């Protein structure tokens, strides 16, 4: 049966199927994804367990999933899907879970820094069109108030000429703004 | 006046639906008396011209029923029947016959109750559709002309 032909339910796994065509129901819990996942040990729920929680369709478990750290630790390295006997695209699912978690404001407190970094990163692109590392790091630090981190290597980076002091800026900067307005902002995801 | 009692012919295969109908009997499940069965070895044998013939002779509705897919006693017969039916329904639809007058089913030898259900629902649908005269008239007029030409 193709994933498309599954009966689509109204719970979170149904949402996932509708938006990403990833059939959570197909998972038979062999655990191969978890076994190969580089960050499984550090997750609060390893991938296979996340899938099981979603399969139950129980509201409290789905809530746990959206509030989990796991979805933010996932590196999208795709090791899981490359070995999954059922070809379940877990990274794609993780993407969706991250959007939903953001949308519903259920992001895990431990993931704050990760999210801050992503936002800082996108800011940099939004304003300059390209990634301006100094700006990024500075911005990230403002957000994370984690001043001391990386001070060790930063100066070294200057000396090696790895960090330019003037940001690279693309001509059509307005374009970036547009793109962001038409995507993130429209969906009310503030940066 | 009495309620309209449709005439319905059932074309069924010997191995599944005919046996299924036997089971309906042995389980004493009651159903409408409007349907009369013609037995074939396999739905694959059913030439759909027979259905037109039935309409021409005043049938108001028709049931075609055989083994479930993959259960055919002759492996593929029911698939051929289904394929033919797909084309045939387009044809009669085009010809202006209401395709609801024909019900195409799978009834296995174990589905006695299902056979009764198929019969009753078909009878009800056809009863709602009312008597089917058009095709018969057309057919008759053709026969008449033929008779004349023969004279």
């Amino acid at each position, binding site marked *: 049966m193709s994933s498309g032909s599954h009966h689509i339910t109204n719970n979170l796994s149904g949402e996932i199927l509708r938006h990403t065509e990833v059939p959570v129901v197909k998972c038979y819990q062999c655990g191969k994804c978890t076994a190969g996942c580089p960050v499984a040990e550090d997750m609060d729920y390893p991938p296979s367990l996340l899938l099981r929680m979603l399969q139950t369709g129980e509201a409290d478990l789905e809530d746990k999933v959206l509030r989990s750290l796991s979805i933010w630790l996932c590196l*999208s390295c795709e090791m899981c899907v490359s070995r999954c006997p059922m070809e379940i695209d877990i990274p794609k699912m993780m993407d969706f879970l*991250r*959007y939903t978690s*953001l949308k519903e404001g259920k992001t895990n407190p431990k993931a704050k820094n*990760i999210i801050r970094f992503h936002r800082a990163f*996108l800011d940099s*692109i939004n304003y300059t069109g390209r990634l301006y590392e100094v700006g990024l790091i500075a911005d990230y630090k403002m957000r994370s108030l984690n001043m001391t981190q*990386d001070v060790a290597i930063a100066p070294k980076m200057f000396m090696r000429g*790895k960090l330019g002091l003037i940001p*690279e800026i693309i001509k059509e900067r307005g374009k970036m703004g547009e793109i962001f307005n038409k995507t993130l902002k429209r969906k009310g995801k503030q940066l | 006046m009495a309620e309209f009692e449709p005439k319905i012919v059932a074309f069924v295969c010997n191995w599944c639906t005919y046996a299924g109908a036997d089971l309906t009997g042995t389980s004493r499940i009651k159903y409408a008396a409007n349907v009369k069965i013609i037995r074939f070895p396999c739905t694959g044998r059913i030439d759909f011209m027979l259905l037109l013939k039935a309409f021409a002779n005043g049938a108001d509705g028709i049931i075609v029923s055989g083994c479930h897919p993959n259960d055919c006693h002759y492996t593929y017969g029911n698939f051929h029947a289904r394929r033919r039916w797909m084309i045939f329904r387009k044809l009669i639809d085009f010809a202006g016959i209401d395709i609801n007058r024909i019900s195409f089913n799978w009834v296995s030898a174990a589905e006695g109750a299902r056979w009764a259900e198929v019969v009753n629902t078909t009878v009800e649908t056809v009863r709602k559709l009312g008597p089917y005269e058009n095709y018969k008239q057309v057919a008759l007029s053709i026969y008449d002309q033929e008779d004349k030409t023969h004279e």
Partner: protein
Amino acid sequence: MKLGFYPGCSLKGGSPEYRISTFNVAEKFGVELVEIPDWNCCGATAAHNMDKELSLSLPGRILALAEAAGLNEIVVPCAACYSRLTVTNHELAEDTQLRENISTIIGMKYEGNVKILNIIQFLDKYVLPHVEEKVVKKFNHDVACYYGCLLVRPHNILKFDREENPQTMDNVITKIGGNPIDWAFKTECCGAGLSVSRTDLVGKLSGKLMIDALDRGAEAIIVACPMCHSNLDMRRSAINKYMNRESEIPVIYITQAVGLAIGLSEKEVGFQYHMVKVKLKEKPITENLVVKKVVQTEPTEEK
């Protein structure tokens, strides 16, 4: 011979050595790399962690620009950018409706006529055919070829090399007289995505693979991705902390290795930019066992 070139932010910023070595090698083989005019960032992991359309729009614009500039074949040295661009290219080709949406978002048409080459595909196509006659100094070192995750996955879309135990980079090294060791972490993730926000994890993931490389006697780790490089090179303190040993193993771009072999100077391949100084000790040229060794690692059909 002109080819499109998408440096991506890293090659402009944190990884000048990769840019320099790539350009210089290309030049030696008569290939001119033309930068895509006014390119923007591909969005990397951040974008597709935050929003799907955004993650397709940013690369979408790049592809559209390249097409507009008539660059039908573009070299994308950064594995992350390569993955993002290829996936986008694939998705836009699959789904016309999606293509419509994206072009309205970026305000440009894209017909899907751009072919994307990662660095190894580039070397394979334009360098390897003539490399042997150009090699002046065999790159005679035992090295661990590290592919990382984004070069080979998602395999069904990228269709590059083999998902498990890939060989193409090893093949390049062999061709320039090097000796790629057989090791276990070729395609494990180094954790670049969390480089800044969860340095502890990076230390762990990168540490694990570096331990394996060291244990198997690698003199250097060969990479084809600036993320992997900055992780393994810049995050060395975190890594050493995890391994709790002081390792000075250099991390070298595949293009730098090729560069050295065809006689570019250390400066020309940009060793001066490395955090971990590159010291490769000369070795007596031994008979090239490499080819056999690689062959051995191939699965052998039994009769």
